[in-house]
């Protein structure tokens, strides 16, 4: 009989019960402290100034793409095309640096924004789940990148000066980190202090009610994915400038990493809860882990399984399963 199912709570629910009441972000902060301690103990070089700068550098790039991703996830959707957008943008940037100079940045960002807008349009107008829409468009964006250049493109040495917008320093601080801070502030304000940001939360929390309350759900959804495209484009130009090159698989790893950052930060995959601040902490956790595993010398291939386990645990803790009748 089905009797054994009754009265027993899943183990995870019991664990959750003990720490219930804490906001989702506190799990991520706990994790951040835990991993910093582990790596600091495990390696003498972890806490050095040089290494902290390395972490900051990669965190700024991950932050940009995760800031976009979180808007897609807040609506209850997901953007699997951020990798494709980053790759495409990197190739566009490298290809156009020489003729366009500084304007290549604007063109690259425009390409990313257009790509995100397209995702949003297909998702909302044709009512195709974002999971499918962006899975498909990710392939399209990558394929366009391949069509532009099958080989990695390097920045022409004549354009190195232009790349200083990302690689240079201002008042002794690396520009890439300043960009990270600016991007965070921008997205934070959009989420907390604009009507669009509020409507994205409403939509993710209850779509039917939002519509009945006059929210233009097509527009809001489209904007959310456009923001995601914008974030990915920013990350794409930052990474490409940093590497002085662009290639069609450059962004692939950022699909998982951006989603993981959002989820570890405690933003619900079901939408409507969490946000930009949570994601900042998630990005810090991811960056510390990625860096720390290299420093203490964990095998590159083993790192992937560790990250996978971590993401599943983070979802288990943060995911509000009560909202779903069936787990699919």
């Amino acid at each position, binding site marked *: *009989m089905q009797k054994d199912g*009754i009265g027993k709570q899943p183990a995870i629910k019991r664990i959750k019960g003990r720490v219930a009441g804490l906001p989702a972000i506190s799990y991520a902060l706990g994790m951040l402290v835990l991993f910093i301690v582990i790596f600091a103990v495990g390696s003498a070089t972890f806490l050095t100034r040089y290494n902290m700068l390395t972490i900051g550098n990669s965190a700024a790039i991950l932050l940009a793409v995760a800031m976009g991703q979180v808007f897609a996830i807040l609506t209850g959707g997901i953007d699997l095309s951020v990798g494709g957008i980053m790759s495409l943008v990197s190739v566009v940037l490298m290809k156009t640096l020489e003729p366009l100079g500084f304007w290549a940045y604007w063109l690259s960002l425009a390409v990313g924004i257009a790509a995100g807008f397209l995702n949003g349009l297909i998702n909302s107008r044709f009512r195709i789940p974002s999971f499918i829409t962006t899975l498909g468009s990710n392939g399209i964006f990558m394929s366009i990148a391949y069509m532009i250049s099958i080989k990695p493109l390097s920045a022409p040495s004549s354009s190195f000066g232009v790349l200083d917008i990302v690689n240079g320093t201002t008042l002794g601080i690396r520009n890439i980190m300043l960009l990270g801070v600016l991007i965070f502030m921008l997205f934070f304000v959009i989420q907390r202090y604009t*009507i669009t940001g*509020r409507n994205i939360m409403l939509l993710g929390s*209850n779509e*039917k009610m939002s519509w*009945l*309350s006059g929210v233009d759900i097509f527009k809001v959804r489209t904007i959310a994915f456009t923001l995601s495209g914008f974030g990915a484009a920013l990350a794409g130009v930052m990474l490409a400038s940093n590497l002085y090159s662009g290639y069609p698989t450059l962004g692939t790893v950022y699909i998982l990493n951006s989603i993981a950052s959002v989820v570890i930060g405690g933003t619900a995959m079901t939408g*409507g809860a969490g946000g930009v601040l949570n994601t900042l902490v998630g990005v810090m956790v991811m960056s510390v882990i990625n860096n720390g595993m290299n420093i203490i010398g964990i095998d590159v291939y083993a790192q992937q399984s560790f990250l996978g386990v971590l993401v599943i645990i983070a979802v288990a803790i943060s995911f509000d399963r009560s909202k779903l009748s069936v787990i699919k």
Partner: protein
Amino acid sequence: MEKKKIIEFKGIRKVFPGVVALKGFDLAIYEKEILGLVGENGAGKSTLMKIMTGNYQPDGGQFLLRGQPIVLGGSMEAIEHGIGMVFQEGSILPNLTVTENLFLCHEKEFSKGWFISESAMVAEARKALEENGLDINPTTLCGNLSPAQRQMVEITRLLWLSRLYRHENPILILDEPTTVLLEKEIKTLFEILNRIKEHATVILISHRLEEIIENSDRIVVLKDGDYVTEMPGKAADIFKIEQLMVGRDMVEGYYRRNEQVDPTDTVVLEVKDLAIESILEPISFTLHKGEILALVGLIGSGKEELVKCLGGSMQATQGSIYRNGKRISIKQPKHAIAHAIGYIPIDRRIEGLATDLDIADNINMLVYKKLKSRGFINKRKERDNANHWMGVVKVKATSHRMKCGNLSGGNQQKVVLGKWLSADAEILIVDHPTRGIDVGAKDEIYHHIRQLAKQGKSMIIMCDTLEEDIGLCNRMLILKDGKKVNEVSCPPDAKPAPTDIIESIV
């Protein structure tokens, strides 16, 4: 009575934070009877049911099943003990066949070795359906069945299960079984229930007292979590029961009738020949400033669809709507909102609130534009607006940052009301304003409705009971089969009797 007691409650008691749901009373339920359980929302009917099905544990008193004290851990355990419940919304899976639904989770009974015999299942299904006098093909998908047929499948399943667990006299609980049924289907349902009664106990919960009186052997009246009285079914008088349920004289005071004001002559909304193909025939009516207009009719009368057209979630196929004399077009909810028409839905948790967000987010969602300064939403303005409207509608909460999902039904309804008031809605469509709200909070909602009318807001209401409609409104439109059949004035000193209205409804 020589019938054997099958269930006995002794001093049964259940307490929720802030509410005593069951105050500790005795009640016996017998074999082979149809018991009608009546009471207002919040009277304790559903709490009692949930104790019987193991969803709640009593906080005090005894629950005796077949003479033995028992503690049930959940619906499945209840079914093993021969107690099954047919839910209002139904729990049949539409993507499975009748057979699959009947034996869901019990396929093992039909297994031969590792495999399940499909033919044995279908044969057994056919037999079970025939026993209950049902002409349903066991291989049809349940999605293709009518609501009535689905209900029958559910009843058949419960009876079959109780036999599987070898119970002589199963107990079937039906919660508002007729809300989704047509007249003819209701007749069939009760014919079948009367047949089932020969070897089972049926407990019936319904707001339709006529049904209860006509079909129950015994009627038990609950009020405010307490047992009031019981009476034999056929002889019962509907007005007597109503009075017992409410516990006070219906004529004066209730529904805040003394606060009713006469509407002004200004027409704020006029509907001309509005029709929806195959649902609603052309209908025309006006709504005045400060008027409370009740739409009355059964399911299928077209009233739900009519208000959806006004709220913008559905579109009429013909006709026109005039707002303050000007023709308007409402294609989407946002158009209705732009014309200051607000819609308070029947299901607040799904259509009225973002339960994951806090009170401030919910109250402010329509007016963020007004809460901006220098282009951005201002936190202080946001807090002030939320607190202001929380005060007006008297939401009981510790702070404006409290999550709406944690509020009681009455407070949630007040938040929805606050949201529309904050947006300066002039016309409110209120779909079942007191659904699922306990008695005290109900009175507060009545008070708010009266106050709003006094301030010149116009309302179109559809209530849980006909009495509520009559009590609250200035005027009522009666719809039947998609047609307006009557229009009745309901001044405070000369409210029509429900029996007069019922004639035109059915």
